[in-house]
């Protein structure tokens, strides 16, 4: 499904990595590891098509990316909160889905927020929530937006023990349903299996 070969990237004048390649099939996930500054985030951004690669190729369903199909199948959660502070969690989810052109009813959105432990916070502006809670609002998108491949950059940061376990469960469910995931982190992840890629 996802085939990456010969990927190279440089930041400014510095070469970050060359000749990175891997492939993922349904149910598999990739754990990208490396020191600070090794280029994990850069690889993620290349992968999703935010920045162009110096060399190499990324193919999704045998088509070169970025394609509309790839974007439809993709969820990317990066370092940013990616939620609007002035809107409530519920509004954030509904509007994000509307921008993506994905149908989402209030019931599903509410269920996602409840599952992520944000019960009672649906109608507060995100601004007043804690960093971990903001992160949970973002993670709720994993449940409200159907996608095949999840690209999560440092998704386990700023989460408490319960939320780490919850995210682990979500990823495991996603993989069991034939999904794929690419994750970065320094710590071992609470998800079994997985290929490793060290930068």
């Amino acid at each position, binding site marked *: 499904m996802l085939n990456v070969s010969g990927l190279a990237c440089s930041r*400014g*004048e*510095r*070469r970050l990595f060359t000749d990175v390649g891997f492939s993922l099939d349904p149910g598999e996930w990739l754990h990208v590891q490396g020191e600070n500054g090794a280029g994990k985030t850069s690889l993620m951004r290349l992968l999703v098509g935010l920045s*162009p690669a110096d060399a190499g190729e990324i193919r999704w369903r045998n088509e070169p990316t970025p394609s509309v199909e790839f974007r439809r199948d993709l969820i990317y959660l990066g370092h940013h909160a990616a939620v609007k502070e002035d809107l409530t969690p519920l509004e954030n989810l509904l509007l994000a889905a509307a921008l993506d052109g994905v149908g989402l009813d209030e019931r599903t959105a509410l269920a996602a927020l409840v599952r992520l432990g944000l019960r009672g916070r649906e109608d507060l502006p995100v601004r007043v929530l804690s960093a971990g809670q903001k992160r949970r609002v973002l993670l709720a998108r994993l449940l409200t937006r159907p996608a095949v491949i999840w690209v999560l950059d440092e998704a386990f940061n700023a989460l408490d023990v319960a939320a780490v376990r919850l995210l682990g469960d979500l990823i495991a469910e996603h993989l069991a349903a034939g999904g794929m995931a690419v994750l970065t982190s320094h710590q071992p992840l609470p998800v079994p299996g997985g290929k490793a890629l060290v930068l």
Partner: protein
Amino acid sequence: MIPWFWAAAIIFGVGGLWISFFVAPTDAQQGEGYRIIFVHVPASWMSMFIYLVMAFWAGLGLALNTRVSGMMAQALAPTGALMAALSLWTGALWGKPMWGAWWVWDARLTSELILFFLYLGFMALQAAIDDPRRADKAGAILALVGVVNIPIIYFSVKWWNTLHQGSTINLNKAPSMAQTMLWGMLLMALAFWMYSIAVALMRVRAIILERERHTEWVKHAVE
């Protein structure tokens, strides 16, 4: 290759200066003051032409994703801005004795001023972005937007000018161009051309060395 362009620039320049000062006769209406056009006109031509070349390189860079085109555009901009500045300066010095004012809101002068601002914007944008590749692309988009806008700006300013024409200044009533004047202007234009090419090539060399300093061939090239 660069020395050849320098040599050509100097030869054409000397020839052009000779004609403009010693061969071209005194103008009946404007006296000796008209000799300014021997630098004014080439500078104005170059300022416009360099923008077109810059936009061409920029477009090429965006379409084909080649690195050198961005560097070319970047190298051309200061020279283009210089030409625009010279054109404005000499235009003012010509206008003062001829029209009695340093500056009139004539269509050409106004467009030239705007062109100068466009150059400044291009250079400021490139200087403000740290990542050279991003700077190239952003600059390229700006140059292309500018190139679409230049004719619109020119015609709008021209129209605005005719609507507001208070005094009877007519730039188009240029003295009938004598053959010698045309030659002088042509030679000066060629000199400006060669100068621009030489200086832009020099600058692009510096830019290439700056940007590609970590590649092997640059390390060997400096020896």
